[in-house]
């Protein structure tokens, strides 16, 4: 009977009225601004980008002569070569990190910080109510447990989106201030069906951000699940951050030996591998990864929902 909107409002109040949340927001802003300052201070200008691109192309051609290299790698290099040739022909300078767009692309690396903070918030969402004892007050209202859980989950995702938007805005602002906006009209060179096309840089930046969000969503959902099942925030933070930092490594080593590694969550969270890289295991495709992610997503949420719905509250 209480409506979902009010419940979400409550959850947001509980997040933003806490000091810790503002520390996280402060750290994110700091990371984004310092990133720009460091690049400004350390970046070396290339004198002659055309010579460098030409050298790179020669290198690629040498490697391509070898017939033993696998097909995926060959395709990847071929694509690189085509783009290089396009640059020289149409005088399109490669994007450098000390430019407005270059810095925005770089700022996507800071998304792992957003992931970490979202994990912390997700891990606390249910577990804190138990450790504070407030769960007893929360669940004796005319609101179903399902609705309360949904409001919490939505609020966690809202937090992630707000943090991403903040990161993008602060990075854009510090990029514009430190590197200027003269290069803002430069296009992004995309490789589509064997040809190079000029596309919007903004769309590219948003795509890079979006592709980086797969592990953000998956790990937040994972932390949310652990938090609900074990009612312990530290455990949820621990397991999720461990997975965040160690998961990809372990998956990589496994993928060298075993084909089934492609079913591991972390083999699939890096969706950028299909755009400008090589798949971890031969035969993996974007739809395959999306399907695997969906299965994990549904499984995590089912476990969370089921435990929250069924278990007695005897804290």
């Amino acid at each position, binding site marked *: *009977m*209480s409506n979902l909107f*009010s*419940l979400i*409002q*409550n959850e947001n*109040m*509980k997040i933003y*009225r*806490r*000091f810790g949340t503002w520390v996280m927001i402060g750290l994110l802003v700091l990371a984004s601004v310092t990133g720009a300052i460091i690049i400004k201070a350390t970046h070396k200008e290339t004198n002659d980008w055309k010579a460098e691109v030409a050298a790179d192309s020669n290198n690629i051609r040498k490697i391509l002569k070898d017939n033993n290299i696998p097909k995926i790698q060959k395709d990847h290099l071929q694509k690189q070569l085509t783009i290089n040739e396009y640059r020289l022909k149409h005088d399109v300078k490669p994007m450098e990190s000390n430019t407005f767009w270059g810095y925005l692309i770089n700022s996507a690396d800071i998304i792992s910080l957003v992931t970490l903070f979202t994990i912390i918030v997700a891990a606390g969402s249910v577990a804190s109510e138990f450790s*504070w*004892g*407030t769960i*007893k*007050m*929360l*669940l*004796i*209202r*005319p*609101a*179903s447990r399902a609705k309360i859980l949904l409001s919490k989950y939505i609020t966690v995702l809202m937090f992630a989106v707000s943090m991403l938007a903040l990161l993008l805005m602060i990075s854009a602002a510090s990029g514009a201030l430190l590197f200027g906006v003269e290069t803002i009209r430069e296009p992004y060179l995309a490789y589509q069906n064997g040809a190079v096309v000029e596309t919007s840089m903004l769309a590219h930046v948003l795509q890079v951000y979006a592709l980086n969000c797969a592990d953000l969503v998956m790990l937040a959902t994972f932390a949310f699940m652990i938090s609900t099942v074990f009612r312990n925030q530290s455990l949820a933070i621990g397991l999720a951050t461990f997975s965040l930092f160690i998961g990809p490594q372990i998956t990589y080593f496994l993928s060298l030996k075993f084909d089934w590694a492609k079913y591991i969550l972390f083999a699939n969270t890096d969706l950028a591998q299909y755009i400008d890289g090589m798949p971890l295991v031969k035969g993996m495709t974007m739809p395959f990864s999306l399907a695997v992610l969906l299965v994990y997503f549904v499984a995590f949420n089912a476990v969370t929902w089921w435990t929250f719905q*069924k278990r*007695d*509250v*005897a804290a």
Partner: protein
Amino acid sequence: MKPILQLKHVRKDIGKKTIIHDLSLDVFAGEVFGLLGPNGAGKTTTIRMIVGLMGITSGEVLVNGVSVTRDFEKAIQHVGAIVENPEMYKFLTGYQNLVHYARMTKGVTKERIEEVVRLVGLEHRIHDKVKTYSLGMRQRLGLAQALLHRPSVLILDEPTNGLDPAGIREIRDYLRKLAREERLAVVVSSHLLAEMEMMCDRFAIIQHGKLVTIESVQELSQQTEKVLFIVEPKEKAAQMVKAHDPHLDIRLVDQGLEVTIDYKDIPRLNAMLVAEGINVYGIHVLAKSLEERFLEMTEGNEIV
């Protein structure tokens, strides 16, 4: 009269252990009903089942005739409760806590929040963070959140825990007032026996998860009682009483005469003493305290 809160053959198993056995009770509008039992008797478990925090293994709980398990949202909207300690969000102010709970129920206005704050006497501290509150203030805030939506059943688990004597008295009077004037059904639990006696109209004694008995405080005080007559001269009075009814159990004590007598017979005995020229300075009903009663019921067994 239809009961507001009904427990029908409620049973709770946790693992292989049965915590509550076949518990049935009815609570009516306008009464304060006690759940009395020693530590570990199952009072909190019973309350958790009533408010839906714990599932019910078998049997059912009805609020205004609506099953808590089958139609939770409809049943619980008439219930206000504090289960064990009144835990609040410590990083929020008292007022923000109330806003939080107000948002979860329909029709709680800003005016109602302020009214409840005044009711529990927190107006001076309501905008302070809860982490700065004393236990008594948290108890009051807990009461405020339970009353916010004008429930018809109020359930409080050990409501006087942590309150000073003045606070205990205040809560007691307040709960009685809610029951009398607003026709609420109030359920309180306690292991403090004397407190139940002062606060409740009826109470259930629970031991080892089983209902031992349901007693009415009024009936209890009207059973055969020890009555102290403060009289002068004592010896003469004793003789008179013996002559009046040789079956009465009489004992001479310092202040006067202790007689075990039916409640309704007290005025007659007094009239007789006065008529015989004995000076009667006072009559005290030494109500058999609940404690005695309680220990009698549970046969002085080990309690946990």
